[in-house]
């Protein structure tokens, strides 16, 4: 009796264990698929030979070439500036937005929440052309206003450049911060804010002294996400970027279109390393908060 039932009982478990084992192997394979190209890229950034599969010795020549590349360094500076301003604005708008939507029952709240998701959900090319056409449509009006306000000597002109790029980046970055902070707020014990309010704190003081410290990990990881995304973004930036505000990914894009180049391997290696460090830091901070 026992002998007859035991196999039928254990076989499914054996099957499931086998499935899990296979999934494990599959995971290893997919990770290899994800990382092998990046590993090759990094390895060949140290290869002395130009465009050759054969290893001809170790060199840092491509890294030196990269650092000596004037447009590239300028683009890096632009990118850091744009990503920095974008991150600050995104954190301010995203955090206050998350807290307000969390703690107040706004009229049309569903609509506002849906609207926040639009920049995340819409294809980048649509956002790019939408903003480009907005900026070109309002540019004559703004410039006319500037001219009439400051007279003929006015040299401030509204054109595609840093301002438009930052606007575009904030538009798709702050929803990420908002979502990250909102998730953290949802886990928060409402009694904390309640206690602060009962003890006489105004809602703003309660927010600043009680809520902000609690959601700090989410704010920081959201900020890192915004910074990384702003540093990496190509598709929207391509449309709204002016010649003097060209970002690093756009400079890389132009280089990639020209063909293979070991200097690009070096740039990519630096990019992968920087991203890996930022992701690890963001994860650590997020987990400390838990």
């Amino acid at each position, binding site marked *: 009796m026992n002998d007859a039932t035991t196999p039928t009982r254990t076989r499914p478990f054996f099957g*499931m264990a086998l499935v899990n084992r296979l*999934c494990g192997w599959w995971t290893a394979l997919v990770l290899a698929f*994800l990382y092998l190209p990046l590993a090759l890229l990094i390895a060949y950034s140290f290869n002395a030979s130009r465009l050759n599969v054969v290893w001809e010795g170790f060199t840092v020549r491509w890294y030196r070439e990269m650092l000596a590349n004037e447009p590239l360094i300028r683009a890096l500076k632009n990118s850091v500036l744009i990503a920095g301003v974008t991150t600050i604005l995104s954190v301010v708008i995203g955090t206050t*937005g998350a807290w307000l939507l969390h703690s*107040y029952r706004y009229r049309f709240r569903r609509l506002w929440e849906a609207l*926040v998701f639009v920049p995340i959900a819409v294809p980048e090319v649509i956002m790019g052309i939408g903003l480009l*056409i907005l900026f070109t449509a309002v540019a004559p009006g703004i410039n006319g206003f500037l001219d009439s306000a400051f007279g003929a000597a006015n040299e401030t002109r509204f054109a595609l450049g840093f301002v438009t790029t930052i606007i575009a980046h904030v538009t798709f970055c702050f929803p990420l911060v908002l979502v990250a902070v909102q998730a953290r707020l949802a886990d928060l014990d409402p*009694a904390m804010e309640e206690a602060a309010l009962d003890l006489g704190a105004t809602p703003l003081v309660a927010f600043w002294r009680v809520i902000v410290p609690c959601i700090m990990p989410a704010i920081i990881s959201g900020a890192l996400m915004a910074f990384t995304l702003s540093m990496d973004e190509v598709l929207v930036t391509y449309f709204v970027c002016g010649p003097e505000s060209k970002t690093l990914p756009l400079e890389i894009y132009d280089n990639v279109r020209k063909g293979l180049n070991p200097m690009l391997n070096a740039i990519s290696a630096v990019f992968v390393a920087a991203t890996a460090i930022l992701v690890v830091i963001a994860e650590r901070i997020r987990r400390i908060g838990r």
Partner: protein
Amino acid sequence: MQAAHATAARVGGRRPGLVGWLLLCPMLLWLAAFVVVPTLILAYASFTRADEDTGFPIYRGGLTFENYRRIVLDDDGHFLRTEQEEITTVDRDGTERVTGTHATTVIAAPYLRVFGSSLLYAGITTVLCVFVGYPMAWYIGRANERTRNRLLMLVMIPFWTGFLIRTYAWITILATDGLLNGLLQYTHAITQPFGMLYTPGAVVLGLVYSYLPFMILPIYGSVEKLDHTLVEAALDLGAGPLATFRKIILPLTRPGIAAGVLLVFVPAVGMYAISSLMGGGRTPMIGDVIQNQFFTGRDWPFGCALGITLVAMFVAAFAILAKFRSSVTGSDHAFRAR
């Protein structure tokens, strides 16, 4: 219990005063100015004519359906076209002879066909991502916390590296003077390098490589939430792994799959750059065509019309998926009630 409930209601349920609305204003104005208004201008511009020199829309020049007509119909005003293909036979002495014709009906409008091929590329990419990503998401979701966090981090690093670097990585491998051809020639497996880049296969590879993490993360989310006792119960009651997967695991992780499909399919359809970098412009996707209207082609209103058509397609897809998802959560409730 009662007190906690009341507290939650008070914090999350206060009606905002004037200050509350004023504080929300910057965000709402930002969204209005840079999401709503651009969409409205886009929609309006798609009905205008283009300035012949600059390609800009002429906002005060009257409205026209011409741009949309150009998307749906070809130059002769046809929606469908029958292509006569001659069947030639080569005789023994080498001369070619027409032995018959073969008629195929195709969509005539070139732009509609680009839409079709973009949908196809994005669809193939999405399906491949589901099949490649699901077992991995399952494994990550069932691993212990330490392994799980490490694996998630490993998935996230390429996800945040930006698609450009990742695309370039594959270009260095697949190019005619790239690593794979170099390796094959070095080992004398082949004598002539052969073109692997600039093929539809390369484009799909690039898309899958770029969007796989977008599929893994949401599926992982629903695998992690899945109540494993249900799986064990099914196995205890004698269901095999396949039946358990089909009847328990798949329905409960369907929201994750739906989210992943959305996160992969939407950007993949609108993607440009991967197809031009890895497909060499031979397999244009709708994103490339739209981008062209604004830079090299210079017909902004037509680009807007293409964009609006793309958005309309997504809205339709969202509506269908929302219905699909609500029916899934509906069955979820039914499941719990039972």
